[in-house]
């Protein structure tokens, strides 16, 4: 019960700070929007080419904007050594990890809910028939990415060049999650091999579980000196 109270306290605090500053969601949205616009100008939306590229465009926009969000969320804790204040509290470090992952998933999901309709309109996609499945894939991909990203943003926050370190550390490790999420999305959006997407979704769930458990166990050693 106390653990739940502590998780909710951190989560509430992160959401409140974001509502006041809006620096994470706005910067993520702007970046994702620019990516979609650039691809929209590059490809002709009426051709088949855009349909094939759409899953890649979607995940490039979401992952790179997610990287910005992850970097910002921990940079805020480093200002004025705020994280030390949290670490002084009698809270298991793994609970801080859980709260941070939930917060990052919420911020990234809000960006997805804004960017997805924009992308559907600009790239002339039809997703109505697979929308529930697509939302599940987006959630699972985001969960895995945020799970790994929260650990690595904590590591990179303690380095001098954290903006550079985070993507260098994060993207190679996230490849299994990114690959499964992109493939699942591709099969769903193609409208042909929806059954095939199921095997990729299962793989995505598996990677999510593995990464979340590993990161949960490692977090205590990463956040403490």
């Amino acid at each position: 019960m106390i653990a739940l109270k502590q998780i909710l306290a951190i989560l509430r605090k992160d959401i409140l700070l974001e509502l006041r500053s809006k620096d994470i969601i706005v910067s993520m949205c702007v970046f994702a929007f620019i990516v979609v616009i650039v691809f929209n100008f590059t490809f002709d939306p009426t051709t088949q080419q855009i349909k094939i590229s759409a899953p890649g465009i979607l995940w490039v926009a979401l992952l790179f904007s997610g990287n910005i969000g992850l970097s910002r969320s921990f940079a805020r804790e480093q200002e004025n050594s705020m994280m030390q204040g949290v670490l002084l509290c009698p809270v298991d470090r793994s609970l801080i990890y859980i709260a941070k992952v939930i917060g990052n998933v919420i911020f990234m999901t809000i960006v997805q809910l804004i960017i997805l309709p924009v992308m559907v309109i600009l790239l002339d996609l039809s997703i109505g028939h697979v929308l529930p499945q697509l939302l599940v894939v987006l959630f699972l991909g985001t969960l895995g990415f945020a799970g790994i990203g929260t650990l690595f943003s904590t590591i990179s926050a303690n380095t001098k060049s954290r903006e550079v370190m985070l993507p260098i550390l994060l993207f190679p490790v996230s490849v299994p999650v990114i690959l499964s999420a992109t493939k699942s999305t591709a099969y769903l959006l193609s409208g042909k091999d929806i059954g095939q997407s199921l095997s990729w979704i299962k793989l995505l769930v598996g990677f999510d579980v593995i990464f979340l458990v590993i990161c949960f166990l490692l977090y205590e050693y990463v956040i403490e000196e």
Partner: protein
Amino acid sequence: MITAQNIRKSFGHAHALKGVNFHIKKGEYVSLLGINGAGKTTLIRIISALTKPTEGNIIVSGVPLKKNPNLIRRLIGVMSHFTFLYGDMSAEENLKFYGNMYNVPDLHDKIDQLLVKVNLNTRRYDLVRTFSRGMQQRLSLARAILHDPHILLLDEPFAGLDVNAEKLLTDLIHDYVSGGMTILLTTHDINYALRHSQRIFVLKEGELVKDDVSGALTRNEIAELLSV
């Protein structure tokens, strides 16, 4: 109350603490003096379970730090030159956050009492970034004692404060000293330490070179020890 047994801390080849031993009794007000880089903050960080010592052990109220760091974190309040307050949250929101982290019972009443005590009740809904440095430090003291700790660790709490703000904070700290709270204060200010504390530790290059309980130590002797 606090026992340090052969505390050593190294950062690579640099030795911040070289075998520090002491015992602080319940209700004692101890000042820890030392120049920059003497290891004062490292020692405070180890006692408050923020950093693990390379060697040695800290025992607080009979509980070894290695065995139950969360129990020790509950017994200790820490106030430093960093306020650990979120600038984009109000005074009340900051205390509510920390109160929930410490699972403080009757949190609303406790926050009301503390905000009155640190004379910030009228500013409770204002964002902390609009506060002066002195107000932020008073709120930081309220944050540090919100969970009724047995021990208060003060790491250069007067840094950047003007004379009035320092006096106000000193009076508040003295209220807790007379209430029986154990206090360990780190400072550069020899006069302040001599005036207010019952016992003085002098830390030099990671070693505890003096532990004065008698109060016989003079300013010049301390300055000499510190090579100021």
